[in-house]
């Protein structure tokens, strides 16, 4: 009986966290458009409701009622499958993010994490690996030269920036001695990882930008070169799914960086969940801010930067971390 109550609580929490993610996804589009408007001295969306707060709902309804076009020569099954793969793998990451400390409901301790597994970091990379199929297949199945270019550039980008990202996170694992996110949060009780691993922090932000395809690495989009990259043939809800996956990635990567470097939900005075959301939204603000600031790299510049600058730097960081850890034990 106790077992089934735990299962039910966990299922409810899982549903709640997915709903939270979808809410954040919807409103981060509005946040991004408002902030971009501010940065560019425009007003931004302000027609639907006060401060445009109904804008995401209006956008969603509009996308829902648009005609759903599938190109005649497209690989139809894969064409339908690709946005789902993107979306599901993006949402799945929410399962291992520790939102807060355990709380007590009806006399039982409930951890505010859907699944507290030992291999959280590997889970993230496994889902990221599956998620990159979404872009690749979307581009391939559209039967369009621009989308196939976009898909190949995107997957090349994802593969090359995953390697330094893994190496940087491995140095965090070395310092904290665990692969689980809740363990990493516990290990940061006294000192955040940003103090212990400042180089890794800055390089990880660069890799994270590439992993979620944002400027200056927004290779899948490149409006000026490829019209819109891998999703050029997508319309209606299928396009929305790619779009939502992108913003879900924005939130989850911010949450992961918060957990890895800024001590997760730990902080004085305020309740843990507030700290967690504050830190996560600080990262999201940063990601939107730099989008308004930097122009886009060319694809060859991105590849050179990834393989010839980021990879050696992250290897050196791992080596130094390992030596220091071996000396101080």
């Amino acid at each position, binding site marked *: 009986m106790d077992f089934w109550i735990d299962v039910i609580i966990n299922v409810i929490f899982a549903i709640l966290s997915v709903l939270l993610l979808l809410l954040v996804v919807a409103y981060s589009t509005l946040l991004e458009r408002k902030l971009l408007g501010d940065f560019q001295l425009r007003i931004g969306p302000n027609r639907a409701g006060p401060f445009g707060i109904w804008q995401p709902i209006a956008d969603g309804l509009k996308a829902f009622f648009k005609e759903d076009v599938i190109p005649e020569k497209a*690989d139809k*099954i*894969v064409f339908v499958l690709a946005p789902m793969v993107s979306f599901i793998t993006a949402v799945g990451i929410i399962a291992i993010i520790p939102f807060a400390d355990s709380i007590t409901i009806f006399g039982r301790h409930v951890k505010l994490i859907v699944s507290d*597994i*030992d*291999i959280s970091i*590997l*889970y993230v*990379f*496994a889902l*990221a*690996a*599956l998620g*990159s*199929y979404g872009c*690749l*297949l979307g581009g*391939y199945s559209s039967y369009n030269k621009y989308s*196939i270019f976009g*898909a*190949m550039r995107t*997957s090349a980008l994802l*593969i090359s920036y995953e390697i330094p990202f893994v190496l940087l996170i491995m140095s965090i694992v070395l310092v904290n001695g665990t*692969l689980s996110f809740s363990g990493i949060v516990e290990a940061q009780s006294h000192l955040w990882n940003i103090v212990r691993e400042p180089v890794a922090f800055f390089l990880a932000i660069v890799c994270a930008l590439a992993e979620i395809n944002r400027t200056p690495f927004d290779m899948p989009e490149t409006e000026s070169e490829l019209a819109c990259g891998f999703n050029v043939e997508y319309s209606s809800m299928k396009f929305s799914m790619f779009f939502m996956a992108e913003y879900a990635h924005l939130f989850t990567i911010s949450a992961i960086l918060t957990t890895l470097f800024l001590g997760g939900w730990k902080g004085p005075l305020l309740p843990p969940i507030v700290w967690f959301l504050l830190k996560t939204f600080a990262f999201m603000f940063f990601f939107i801010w730099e989008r308004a600031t930097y122009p886009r790299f060319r694809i060859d510049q991105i590849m050179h930067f990834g393989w010839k600058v980021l990879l050696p730097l992250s290897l050196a960081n791992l080596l130094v971390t390992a030596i220091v850890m071996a000396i101080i034990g």
Partner: protein
Amino acid sequence: MDVIIFFMAVVFAMGSAIAIICVKNPIHSALWMVSTLFCTAVIYLLLGFDFLAAIQVIVYAGAIMMLIVYVIMLTSIEEEIKKRYRLRLFQIVGIFFVIIFFIQAVKYGMVHLTGWEGFDWKSIPERFGSVNYIAYKLFTKFVLPFEVVSILLLAGIAGAVYLAKKEKNKGE
């Protein structure tokens, strides 16, 4: 619960494995292969090998199959679809029985010839598939094979770099 998930994983793995050799489009074959590898990862997970399951998805489904899909995308798929030899249903059924016979033979051999019959399954330590256990074994008992494999991989990387390097004397 575990049993239900196990049988679902097995059925999906077998189904997608059959689909690999049955579908026309090579990209679809590659995708069914990804599905098979994913289902195998689920089986590892049920056995308690969480590390192996994650590595299976990252390395096989993420890296190797990605490369294969990439290469297939660069070939002309339409010609391939026309030319490709497809197995017919009765051939698949035939192959299926041959494989089952083979598995039974191997099983018989393993159980009766290698002494697995009296193997004490309880002697397997707890947390057998965990990261800590694998890392501990890898850096103590199996450190020599581990180093040999890493040198082999290093040689592979050096070879790949050499092949990809531009030849400077030619064509300038």
